[in-house]
């Protein structure tokens, strides 16, 4: 195939989504650490799916428009670090093809792949070789070389695919941790799946499997309650639609709709603008936007009724939680937290909205954006509480109209420690500085089980072994949670330690946790020891020492 048309490109993307969805578990299993939260495949797949949904909304004839939807959709749907990097990859891809209308040539494709790679390198602060970045870069180099030699678009894609496959094979050479764990890089493998899907698409293979059928069930359902509000709701109609036109101005739409409601989100370009607003006058909003272009995908929900229904149905359920909305705050707080007990603790420390998730399910940028928009505050601070959520939290900064700050908390204990320095009356800058400065005053330990056999340093780990991690690194291996936790605490406590907090998970027997607590009290008489039911999944214990 000499050139790529819009419908071929769309087919390539659909194939990529399908293949990635099929292989996501395989990608998940490539996690370096054998902990049960390897979700690189899931995150990349969900991110791509979000992009594909956006693509469905535009006509495939115009390549520039198609890739712009790809970039926008993946940006909003970005989940986890790998998802965020993928969204940046597509952003570069879209930039590279922005001016292409009906046919992308070999040169166009090579340029788009180069832009993709460049954008990912710019997006991460410290690029690491042997990852998705390397795979993207090698693919781009091969594509450029092929295009220079006069290859067709299809040949360029083959070249990129082969280089990507080689780069994935080589990833353990760059990263000793991969070699030690006996795996290739998960993100790189995910990108390779996408290239493989592209190849299937360009060859015109039939699409047997639609990635769009795969839904991120758990999280999306839980998001229903994100603006659970007590009492009468102001701006109760959640109104969403697209404006299709030719010379649309998202800034103009945004400023015009501003007075009509709240939690407003207007994104888009000259041809498509997506509007989301909570308003009491959905009719006026539609009327106004209808004059600018064609309205489509119109969805209006009454949040008051939804909310009442939700409250009835989920009285005891743990979904997103939000504080009753009182006066508008100076600074609001959004935290990503797994488990009911931990959510209660975070709420008691002044957090306004809890986004459920963390280790098992990384919330998407859009989930976080919605949480941020639902907080009745002038500025919002996000506590990701997981290293894999920090990146998507940072993306919210670009998308929200409010000033947003992210404190890069990598664990639940870091989140709690940061909250000790939250001053509701102080400025956003002051809070961010104080929270950032102090968040690492605490040591984090976690106890979970190994999902596969591996070697970590001197430790030989079998599948289902209980493992204890300190600051994310495997430190202790054993057969019982009590034994591993005991040794984990021992490795964390030193003469400066004075408070040990234990948060036990939903799979941990409470009586056993209490017994462990008694034991620790005796052993560490100089320390204050506290135990709480955290309710987090998969992690029997989260331990903090300060």
């Amino acid at each position: 195939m000499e050139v790529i048309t819009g419908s071929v490109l769309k087919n390539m993307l659909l194939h990529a989504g399908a293949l990635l969805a099929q292989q996501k578990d395989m990608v998940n299993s490539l996690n370096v650490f054998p902990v049960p939260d390897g979700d690189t495949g899931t995150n990349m797949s969900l991110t791509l799916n979000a992009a594909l949904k956006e693509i469905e909304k535009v006509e495939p004839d115009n390549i520039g428009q198609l890739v712009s939807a790809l970039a926008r959709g993946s940006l909003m749907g970005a989940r986890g670090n790998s998802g965020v990097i993928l969204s940046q990859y597509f952003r570069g891809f879209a930039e590279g093809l922005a001016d292409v209308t009906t046919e992308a040539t070999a040169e166009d494709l090579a340029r788009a792949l180069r832009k993709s790679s460049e954008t990912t390198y710019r997006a991460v602060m410290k690029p690491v070789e042997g990852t998705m970045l390397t795979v993207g870069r090698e693919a781009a180099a091969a594509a450029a070389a092929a295009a220079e030699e006069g290859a067709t678009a299809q040949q360029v894609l083959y070249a990129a695919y082969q280089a990507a496959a080689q780069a994935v094979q080589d990833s353990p050479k760059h990263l000793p941790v991969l070699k030690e764990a006996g795996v290739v890089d998960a993100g790189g493998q995910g990108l390779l799946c996408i290239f493989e899907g592209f190849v299937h698409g360009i060859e015109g293979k039939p699409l047997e499997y639609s990635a769009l059928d795969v839904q991120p069930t758990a999280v999306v359902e839980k998001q229903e309650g994100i603006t659970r509000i007590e009492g009468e709701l102001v701006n109760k109609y959640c109104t969403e639609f697209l404006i299709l036109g030719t010379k649309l101005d998202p800034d103009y739409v945004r400023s015009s709709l501003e007075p009509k409601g709240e939690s407003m989100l207007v994104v888009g370009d000259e041809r498509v603008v997506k509007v989301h607003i909570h308003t009491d006058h959905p009719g006026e909003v539609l009327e106004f936007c209808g004059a600018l272009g064609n309205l489509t995908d119109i969805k209006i929900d009454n949040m008051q009724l939804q909310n009442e229904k939700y409250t009835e149905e989920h009285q005891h359920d743990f979904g997103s939680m939000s504080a009753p909305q009182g006066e508008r705050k100076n600074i609001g707080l959004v935290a990503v937290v797994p488990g009911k007990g931990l959510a209660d603790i975070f709420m008691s420390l002044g957090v306004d909205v809890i986004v459920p998730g963390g280790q098992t399910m990384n919330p998407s940028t859009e989930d976080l954006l919605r949480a941020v928009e639902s907080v009745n505050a002038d500025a919002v601070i996000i506590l990701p509480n997981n290293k894999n959520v920090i990146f998507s939290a940072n993306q919210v900064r670009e998308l929200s109209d409010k000033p947003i700050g992210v404190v890069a908390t990598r664990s639940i204990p870091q989140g709690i420690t940061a909250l000790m320095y939250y001053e509701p009356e102080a400025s956003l800058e002051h809070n961010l500085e104080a929270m950032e400065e102090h968040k690492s005053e605490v040591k984090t330990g976690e106890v979970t089980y190994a999902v596969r056999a591996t070697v970590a340093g001197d430790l030989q780990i079998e599948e289902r072994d209980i493992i204890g991690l300190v600051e994310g690194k495997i430190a202790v291996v054993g057969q019982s949670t009590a034994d591993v936790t005991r040794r984990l605490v021992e490795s964390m406590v030193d003469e400066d330690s004075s408070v040990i907090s234990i948060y036990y998970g939903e799979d941990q027997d409470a009586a056993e946790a209490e017994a462990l607590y008694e034991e620790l009290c005796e052993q560490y008489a100089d320390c204050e020891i506290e135990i709480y039911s955290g309710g987090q999944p998969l992690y029997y214990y989260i331990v903090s020492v300060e």
Partner: protein
Amino acid sequence: MARIHVVTDTGSDLPEKIRQELNIHVVPLSIQFGDEIYRDGIDLSVAEFYQRLQNDDELPSTCQPSPADFQAKYLEIAEPGDTILSIHLSSRLSGTYQSSVIAGTMVAEEGIKVINIDTKSASIGIGLIAVEAARLIRAGIALEEILEKLNYAISEMQVFFVVDTLEYLRRNGRIGNAQALLGTLLNIKPILTLQDGVVSPLEKIRGKGRAIKRLKELAGQVRAKYPDKDLSVGLTHAMVPNEAEQLALALKEELALTDDVILGMIGPTIGVHVGMGTMALLLHPKM
């Protein structure tokens, strides 16, 4: 010869020994448990008070001295022509200062001049000002200069206190509900301060040991802020004498103090509002 006297109230938490040494007079506030009324330090010891505070369901209340109480004390200690420095609890926390002002006008016709001083502080913060006043009087410093030095000490006074629970401050309406509820699920020791004479949260620390360590750091920051000045330091506690003594010794050394840290117990007047386990560190540079 006309003399200058120092009067304070029981909110100052000054140990009796120091009061006697420096001839500082004290007027008690009253504590009311139900129908029973006790005068702080006279009818009720500190230990008895905390025992009842823990065990009684009903929260006791404090009552400021009446102008007549002050008038009686002023007339008892002063002669016509004398001056009294009447040094009291923050007027935004208690009506004690107000009573002393009224009493001042009442004894004016007897030829006794009362200078009422609102320390904008509490506990040993008042005590430190009273001690400073008594020492300056003893050193024969002129009244104008004494007042200037006291005003400086009041304006530069630093207050840090750690409570075991915000419950007492909340029940007495000294802190908002929302603030009091923060962190009640975790073992959090709030460090508070007085801002313009009103209780205001400063920091939240996990664990008592770390909170005490933090007090030391905060004192170190004050030291650094006034590198060339001697500091006057007071430390009071509600039934945690060991921790307080240790901290007092450490502070004397670390802050390179000339005088000892004045160590006192938080009496009923202040104790009603902060509860057992509280530690309060107050310090000011000397002009």
